[in-house]
């Protein structure tokens, strides 16, 4: 039992993460409920990337991305899978390569341009490193997506959409959880409102993601 549970009121906020909105970093407190509910929401999306019972998924992210990455970690547990972690930096790319070789993950989430660059700086071929998980890689930015596509690895996009995540379901189209979020587009930008309870509410939050909402649950990028 934690000290907080035994002696104190548990802190209302599980942690303070951040969102990048209009080019500015905004502190974003989330609750334990938010994390657990996001994990529930993300589990089927992680499963669609090929993660199942007994598997391991490697999550490549930064601690500042905790409000997006931790739900994926917990989602792995809901699927009966383990996870491992590496930083999404050039200097930690060696760990990405090492963990893929040693732990043979079923999927890798969060590869970004910095990691691809870091692998190259190590004298390693990203295509060779990631070949074992080809078709089961979700990228965190366009640089990595374009690069890994060029290398024939068929990556999917993992996009931070406000405080939740959206996943590429077919080329150029993202899926998000319409049971918890209401998305629409305003002047070519996706705006987001929470319909499930969240500690920090979103009320038509301008996410910075460019696209249109052709129907609930889908975003056409661009």
């Amino acid at each position: 039992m934690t000290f907080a549970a035994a002696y104190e009121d548990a802190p209302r906020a599980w942690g303070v993460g951040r969102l990048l909105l209009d080019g500015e970093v905004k502190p974003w407190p989330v609750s334990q409920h938010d994390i657990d509910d996001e994990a529930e929401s993300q589990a089927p999306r992680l499963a669609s990337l090929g993660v199942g019972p007994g598997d391991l998924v490697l999550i490549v992210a930064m601690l500042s991305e905790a409000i997006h990455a931790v739900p994926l970690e917990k989602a792995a547990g809901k699927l009966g899978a383990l996870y491992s972690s590496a930083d999404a930096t050039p200097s930690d790319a060696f760990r990405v390569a090492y963990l893929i070789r040693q732990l043979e993950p079923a999927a890798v989430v969060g590869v970004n341009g910095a990691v691809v660059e870091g692998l190259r700086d190590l004298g390693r071929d990203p295509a060779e490193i990631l070949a074992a998980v080809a078709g089961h890689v979700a990228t965190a930015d366009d640089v990595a997506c374009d690069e890994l596509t060029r290398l024939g690895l068929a990556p999917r996009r993992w996009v931070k959409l406000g405080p939740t995540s959206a996943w590429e379901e077919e080329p150029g189209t993202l899926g998000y959880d319409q049971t918890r979020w209401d998305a629409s587009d305003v002047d070519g930008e996706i705006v987001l409102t929470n319909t499930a309870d969240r500690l920090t509410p979103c009320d038509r939050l301008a996410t910075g993601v460019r696209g249109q909402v052709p129907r609930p649950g889908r975003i056409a990028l661009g």
Partner: protein
Amino acid sequence: MGDPKRRYFSPEIETKPRERIERERDEKLLGDLLPWAYERSALIQEVWSEAGVTIDDVTTMDDFHQKVPFISKDTVRSFRDRHHDPYGGLLCLDPEMTEVFSAIFSTSGTTGDPTPAPYAGRGPSMLVREFWETGCRPGDHFVEMLFTFRGPGIHDTIRGIGATPVFLDHSPAEVPQLVRFSRELRPTAWYNLSGPLVLALEQHVADTGDNLAEAFASYRGVIFAGEPIGPRARHIVEDEWGLELFVQTGVGDVGAATECREHDGCHFWEDTCYVEHLDPDGAEPAGDGKRGELVATTLIDKIAPLVRYRSDDLVRVTREQCACGRTHGRLWPLGRKGDEVVVGGRSVLPGDVWAAVESVPETSAGLFQVIRTAREVDRLRLRVGYSAEGPKGLGDLRARVTDAVQAAVGVQPEVELVENEVLLRQGPPHKIPRVAKA
């Protein structure tokens, strides 16, 4: 509500009488940890078998000291490579037991390949005791400035004292956010500060003129970890920015030891580990307060237990009661055995030249490496990072660094100068390798 004014997080453990600490520690080691590890760890079985020792031979602490063989990082790596076992034969449980494990993390990889470590943690770690000692209290914000590869143990520990973690990357690029979040959220503790971050904060001040004493006024304690802090950096952090530093060091990969508010050694918790400190070249105890090699045995890690693990860390150790009232042992990190060079019979550790390098303005970042081709060398070779060439060029700078080091250690060094960035790129983000082979 609990009493936020109380001094200790777990007073009944932290101030337990020595006699009880030692009795319970020995019972846990001999009666629980050793039989568990011997029965399940392939590495322990191999090493003990080679030494002709079985668990039945170890029934007293004297037996433990006289018969139990040492292991080291090299022992673990050798097992890993020979048996193609990424866990080096240490695992006592199947890592695919998802009802037990949630994740597999890895060590920093500073001195070689990272070592994977299955994680079964649910809830706070023992660090709640030191996090409480920083002065952070329930309801406060606590800056967690770290990496992802060590897992969620620190988030859970911060929440374990009733505080809320504020997530930041352990990166120089995060300094503007750190300063901003410090002003907006007024956190009271921060884990952790490191040498590269001190440099980045200094650069931030130089670039912006920001007043960090004001920005950081809410902090009651900051844990400094990764590697030792040099005297110049300590002066800036403590005297100019007004932060109270709590130095933390590792306990042979089985835990951590952290200063209390007395700042007189780093407390290690003897309900979690058994610490020996021995002659660096042998097996005899080094003696209370004397320099020796830290040899650690876990008392609580049932997943991948290390038993008599020679850490390569040189430390002083005492079990005298601290002025803070805690009765557990304390240690002072002195350097790494593998970092020592002997030049003309004189022992030199990185810590011996640190202040000298910092004393020259252009190399004041204290970024340097000892070039160690062997333990005993003819010349002391240093690679030193500089921020600017200085008014008279690199030749003059090299001469000033050489003179400063010679004055400090009595040995004339051969100094190679490189730009600071060259050394910082050799990270991980919180430290640089202090020894290079070439």
